[in-house]
């Protein structure tokens, strides 16, 4: 069988082949509203308010997706953000299975609180996110600067930086690599499973250039063709600034990550 590998995208959790249509909205949330604790609740979907006989009306963000195996435990849950006018949101390509796993692994931590609290508020230093269909939000259809295909976007995500020069060196697990003078980015593929790896050092230009990419796969392809690094805030990795490089695929293969286009920590 011949597989056309051009323009193939993958689930950002499982690494399985997926599609641009599986681009989801990822939103940092500050809490979960637990409908079980509301007496005779009425959900006003136009105003996004929950009314009830025993609680003050409360504004919700979205009804949360609950995987089937948690439905008995969770009933109806609604995500809550403390600043609905200024949300932290991005996109990721996730298969249905990926959504089920990522939502389930977060919701399972809340089960112990569901018989006690109507609003489970997360501490500031915790990072929880909701995964929603992008169609629920005002979004644009953009054209990918590299592959030329259309994709749904919630705004500027990727920024590109030109590589001035680079070098690689051996890296040993347990010994932190050094960011040598003259370089401003270091990434690597060392882990317990890959104890003898490679560290990649880059000196980059100061300026960022915004670019539109449909996916990490397209961004990595652009890195290879143009000798650049691509930066973005990765909401699947605690909303940290992370980087894609010409070496992303080999780094993830060596790290044995299921998703070969996962961003690297900097």
């Amino acid at each position, binding site marked *: 069988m011949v597989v056309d590998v051009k323009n193939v995208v993958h689930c950002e959790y499982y690494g399985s082949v997926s599609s641009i249509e599986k681009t989801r909205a990822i939103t940092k949330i500050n809490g979960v509203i637990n409908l079980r604790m509301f007496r005779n609740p009425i959900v006003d979907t136009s105003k996004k308010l929950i009314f009830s006989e025993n609680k003050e009306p409360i504004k919700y963000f979205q009804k949360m997706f609950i995987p089937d195996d948690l439905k008995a435990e969770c009933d109806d849950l609604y995500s809550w953000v403390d*600043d609905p*006018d*200024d949300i*932290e949101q991005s996109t990721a390509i996730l298969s249905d299975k990926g959504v089920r796993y990522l939502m389930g692994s977060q919701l399972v931590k809340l089960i112990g609180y569901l018989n006690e609290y109507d609003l489970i508020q997360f501490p*500031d*230093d915790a990072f929880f996110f909701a995964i929603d269909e992008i169609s629920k939000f005002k979004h644009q259809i953009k054209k990918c600067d590299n592959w030329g295909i259309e994709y749904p976007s919630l705004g500027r995500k990727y*920024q590109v*930086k030109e590589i001035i020069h680079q070098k690689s060196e051996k890296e040993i697990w347990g010994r932190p690599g050094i*960011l040598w003078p003259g370089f*401003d*980015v270091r990434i690597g593929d060392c882990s317990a499973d890959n104890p003898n790896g490679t560290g990649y050092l880059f000196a*980059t230009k*100061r*300026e*960022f250039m915004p670019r539109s990419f449909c996916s990490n796969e397209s961004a990595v392809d652009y890195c290879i063709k143009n000798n650049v690094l691509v*930066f973005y*805030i990765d909401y699947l990795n*605690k*909303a*940290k*600034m992370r980087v894609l490089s010409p070496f992303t695929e080999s780094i993830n293969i060596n790290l044995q990550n299921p998703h070969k286009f996962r961003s690297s920590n*900097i």
Partner: protein
Amino acid sequence: MTPRFSTDRLVVREFKNKDLFECYELFSNSETMNLFGGSTKNTEFFHGDFGASIQEETKAEILHFWSVTLKDENIFIGFIRLMSYASYYYDVSFSSLGDQRYSTESLNYFDRKNGWEIDYALVPDMRNKGLMREAVGEILEFCANSKKYPIYAKVNSIKNTATIKLLLHFNFKAHLPMIDTTRLNLDMMDKIFQEKDYGMIYKWQP
């Protein structure tokens, strides 16, 4: 907790990771850093988890970090920081003094127990529009209400008239000149003062 403020044109709120790129623009801009003090940053600015470290220090009550955003467009245009002198920020701020920063004389000038240092920066095209004055006014009111004072503000060059005008508007007082210690000899003093080649630490309390 870092409280949120709203003015006619601005929302001044806690820093969010989505502000990272715009914040980098400030720290990598040589003109801005010349006024702000410190070297321009490249990608090393992102090393570690900038947002998480702000949250940790806020929780430890040694830092408040506000993003200044345009109300209508939700765009990050600058930041304001308050850093407690009852923390390592005092050492960072006065590291150039060496051990002298712990001397009785220094501690007479700076209240290490209660003092806070304020600093701020705006993106170049948002300057000279009175925006920072709006934002700083809210922060000082918060400081007065929560008894976070005295507040110190370092101005790296007294040629930075815009910042000095802002500070004087809020009744900051000139507290102590800052002179490059490598040039601190009597022959140079006249020249330094004639050419206004020095900075000033201002102090505020309600």
